Each structure stands twice: as structure tokens, then as C-alpha cells.
């Protein structure tokens, strides 16, 4: 234990200076920024996002490149048809797990530590606190997500260059790379909403990863056109379509349509999180 110095006998300050002139929104954004930057796990998780995404992209594209000449003709048709989709798909699949964890943690850690009570005493109307959190977290994840996305693209396209050349200037490629970062932002909000609804870190992380990672695997096994439609409308399946240059032959949604579907999923879960934040006992 660290020793505390003896408390001073002096009472509270006689008068506080008047509140700074900044508006309420900026005060809350500053507070949420302080919260998120003052916990070490934030930094580590964000670093992990970039490392895992770029790392897995490099590893998997290296593996594809190394076995390219030994594989049967036609096996790489999908990669040649949409190299950017293949490159981004490899890394984001794994990198997105870190965002599920961080998204849940930014809110569930407040519940598990009890800090939520301090936060809500400061902002008793509640929803502005969650809105400010969503904005600050969204901006941070956008910056880091784009870093991971562009990093993956440049690493992957350099590795696959001799087999499936692709550049940012090709049709749909810039949109796909930017879109991968946007997908990560939405996924962060989606996970944050789940964290706010469930409040318990372990349960919320399990749920978020289940929805994002496990459901698509199950969805892939659903038979027939009926099952295929369901699979394509799953949150992470639909949302990650934005990271492709164009609609795949076996997909029922265009990249923007898929992204729109994920926007609706996220909006619904976020709305539920706001609703229950207002309604429930803290």
C-alpha cells in the first residue's frame, strides 16, 4: 500500500471560479476523452488492432503468394477478381475481435468498477454521457481503424503484386479501404451498445464476438437461397461488404447496401442501449 499524506485541516475553497465558457457538449467530450485515454487497456487494444490486422493480412497474403504456383487454375479467381476484398478480408476478420473487446470495455468497465455511478452523478440526464462517449470512441477508432486498413492494404497489395496487382486508383478500391475503417467504427459502436445493454464485461464480449465472428460461420452453413439471404444480412457479413471493390458473385447485397444493413443493426442496438440507460437503475 502506498501511504497517504495526512489530510490538511483546511476546508474547501471559499469560492470557485465561474464555469469555463465552453458549451456542455465540449465539456462532456473532454471528460470522455480523459476517461478513455487514462486507462492503459485502451492504448494496448488499439495497438493490437493495428498489429493483428496488418500482421494477419501480411501472413495470409504471404501464404497465398507462396503457394500460388502450386495451386490449381481457377482457385484464385476470387482473389484476381477482387484483390482489395481478399487483402482486407484476411486481416479485418481477426482485427475486428480487438474492437469488439474495446467497444464492450469502454462502457462495461464503468459498470464493473462502479465508476458509472460517479459518471451518472455528474451527468444525471445520462444520454449525453453515452452520446459523448460514442463520439469520442468513434473518432479514435476511425483514426486507428483507417491506419489498420491502409496498412493492411499497402502490405497486402505489395505482397500479392506479382499475382493480383491492385492500386488505390482502381475502381472501388479507395472506397473499400476507407470503408474497412468505417466498418470498424460501426463495429465499435455495435459492441459498445452490447456492453451498455449487458453491463457485464465477460458476457458482453462473448455476445459481441458470437454475433460478429460465430454467427457468420453458422450462417455460411444455412442451406438454400433462404439461408443465403439470412447469412448476407448478418451484421458483420453485411457490414464488411464495404471492404470489397464490388459485389461478389454469391452476394445478394452491394457493398453500400451491406454497409447500410449494418448501419441499421448498429442503430437498433444503440437505440436499445440509450433506452435502457435512461430507464434502468444504475
Amino acid at each position, binding site marked *: 500500500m*502506498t501511504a497517504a499524506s495526512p*489530510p490538511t485541516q483546511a476546508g474547501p475553497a471559499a469560492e470557485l471560479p465561474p464555469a469555463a465558457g465552453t458549451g456542455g457538449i465540449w465539456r462532456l467530450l473532454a471528460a470522455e476523452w480523459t476517461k478513455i485515454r487514462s486507462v492503459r487497456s485502451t492504448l494496448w487494444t488499439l495497438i493490437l488492432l493495428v498489429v493483428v490486422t496488418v500482421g494477419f493480412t501480411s501472413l495470409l497474403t504471404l501464404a497465398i503468394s507462396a503457394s500460388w504456383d502450386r495451386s490449381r487454375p481457377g482457385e484464385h479467381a476470387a482473389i484476381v477478381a477482387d484483390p482489395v476484398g481478399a487483402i482486407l478480408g484476411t486481416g479485418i476478420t481477426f482485427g475486428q475481435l480487438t474492437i469488439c473487446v474495446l467497444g464492450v470495455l469502454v462502457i462495461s468497465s464503468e459498470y464493473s468498477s462502479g465508476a458509472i455511478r460517479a459518471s451518472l452523478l455528474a451527468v444525471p440526464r445520462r444520454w449525453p454521457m453515452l452520446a459523448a462517449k460514442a463520439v469520442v470512441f468513434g473518432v479514435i477508432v476511425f483514426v486507428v481503424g483507417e491506419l489498420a486498413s491502409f496498412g493492411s492494404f499497402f502490405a497486402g497489395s505489395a505482397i500479392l503484386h506479382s499475382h493480383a496487382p491492385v492500386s488505390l486508383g482502381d475502381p472501388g478500391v479507395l472506397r473499400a479501404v476507407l470503408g474497412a475503417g468505417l466498418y470498424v467504427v460501426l463495429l465499435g459502436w455495435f459492441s459498445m451498445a452490447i456492453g451498455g445493454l449487458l453491463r457485464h464485461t465477460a458476457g458482453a464480449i462473448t455476445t459481441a464476438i458470437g454475433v460478429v465472428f460465430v454467427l457468420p460461420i453458422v450462417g455460411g452453413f444455412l442451406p438454400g437461397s433462404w439461408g443465403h439471404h439470412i447469412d448476407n444480412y448478418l451484421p458483420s457479413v453485411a457490414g464488411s461488404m464495404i471492404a470489397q471493390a464490388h459485389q461478389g458473385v454469391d452476394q445478394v447485397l452491394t457493398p453500400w447496401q451491406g454497409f447500410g444493413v449494418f448501419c441499421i443493426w448498429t442503430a437498433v442496438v444503440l437505440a436499445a442501449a440509450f433506452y435502457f440507460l435512461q430507464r434502468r437503475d444504475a
Partner: protein
Amino acid sequence: MIEVRDLTKHYGDKLAVDHLSFTVEPGRVTGFLGPNGAGKSTTMRLILGLDRPQAGTATIGGRRYDQLARPLRTVGALLEAKAMHDGRSAYNHLLYLAQTQGLPRTRVDEVLALVGLTDVAHKRTGGYSLGMSQRVGIAAAMLGNPPVLLLDEPVNGLDPEGIRWIRNLMKQLAGEGRTVFVSSHLMNEMAVTADHLIVIGRGRLIANCPTQELIEHSSERTVLVRSPQSDRLGELITAGGGVVKPEDGAAPPGGLSVTGMEAPRIGEIAAGAGIVLHELTPRLASLEEAFMEMTAGSLEYGVGPEAQAARAQAAQASPGPADGSQS
């Protein structure tokens, strides 16, 4: 000023606060007393808008807590020792709270100095002792220099020096004209701190009066008398206007507990009748005993025959097991 009117809260089937009404005036320390599970913390959470009541209102200076624009400048609250993230430093915990209220960073330094944590302010609170965490909580409560303070069991986990410090701080704050509302389950602690007491049990108001009045009312004098002729002596005392009860508990058996008559008079009666006395002891009921007696019927998780009887009564009144999920 805090005004609670007809406040009612139940969690599922369990009634935590039952049509509770009281007012907490500024300029004095008001103690909020009750056994564990009486509904003290729930009442404070309802006042602070953390929990929503099923009925009734709680206002601070005439406004509901969630209607306050910058609430920490009006109300400071200490709810539990650890309402902070283990991985965040005390400084950053207080900083983000200050930012929500538009308070400058210098105010964070001031409250850290006030509670004596300046030297460890940048260490993560996960390594803090309970007493240090409690001080961070006090610092957070004092951040907005609020005219109203709510402190839930503030001396929990503090060493004697810390307890004295909190007592003095509360008295000083009340002396400055602030409203200080502090809960405790320890009567003796409240007796030395609070000017006024609000006592609850099972979510209902039991007493609301100045501390001194409660002490005088509670500290009924009794006299313990032992005599080999206790039956005869008891009759004489009763005839003389005293109230006699058999003394239970104290060994050896056969003692009498007398109220309404002073020890000298009992001695005179015994001498007059030629009765031998083995013991004649004036006693002052301790505050803690008085408090136990006052709240015995409302004990929920207590031990001993009284509490068991109370529970049996309660079980008859409202079937179904009570769950102790909150205090």
C-alpha cells in the same frame, strides 16, 4: 435542503423504501441511521437519481437531481468506497468529473490537497487502500464545492485518525451553512457527529428528531436489584410506583430490573421492610442498546431471538423469502 416526500421503491417483490418522508435542513449534520438493509443506501440513490422510485419525490433545493444543470456544484455525494476504475489514477478520475462540470484543473489539485492525496494522485487507484479510496470519494464529493453533501457510511474503512478527520470535516461543512446528510448503521458514531437524526427501519421512518432528544428519550435509567427475597421486594417496589421486570440474561438469575424508581429509594424500601440486598446497581442504557431496541422490529438480517421473531412476523405478513440483494 433535501426534501423526501412519500418515497417508495421496491425491487421486484422486495420493498426497500416504504412511503418515506423527511426533510434535511442546512447548517447542521443530519444523521441517517438504521440497521443494515433498512433502506439508507437506496434512499440516497433515489435522492441522487441513480435509482428511479415507484412513487414519491426527492428534491434538492426544490429540484429533482436530474434537473440540476451542473449537479456536482450543487450536491456532492460519497456513495461507496470504490466508484472508480482500478486502472485510472485518482487525478484522472477527478479530472474527468471536473470536466463534466466545467471546473478547472486547479480545482482537482485543491481537492486532492484537501484529502491529503497529492503525493499519490497519479498512481492507479487499484493500489489504494480502502481508506485512500474513501478519500478519493470525499475529494469527488467536494469537487464542485457544493452546498449539499450526501455521504453514505463515510467512516467505513477509515483508521481512527481518518474517522476524526471526517467528523471534523462534516461539522465544519455544516458550520459553513451547508446541508450535510450522512448515513451510518452505528448509533454511537452518529451520537458524536450528528446534530439531528433520521432513523429508519425496513424502509420506514422510525424517528426524526434532534440527536440530544433521542439520547435522552432512549437512555432510560434502570436499576438492577438482587435480593434473596426478590418476590417480596418486587411487590413493595411496584406498590411504591416502580416498574419491575425480571432481569434476564445477567447471571446469577433472580435479579430485578426496575424502572421509574431511583436506587436510593429502592434501598430505603428494602431497609424499611428488613429485606436483604445483594446488589443495587443504577444503569444507563447505552445508545447502541436503545437503537437496537428501537429498530428490533425492523431488523431483517439480524441474529438473536428478537430478530428471529421479527422475521417470523414479517414472513407471516408478506409470504415469500426476502432476498438480500441490496442494502
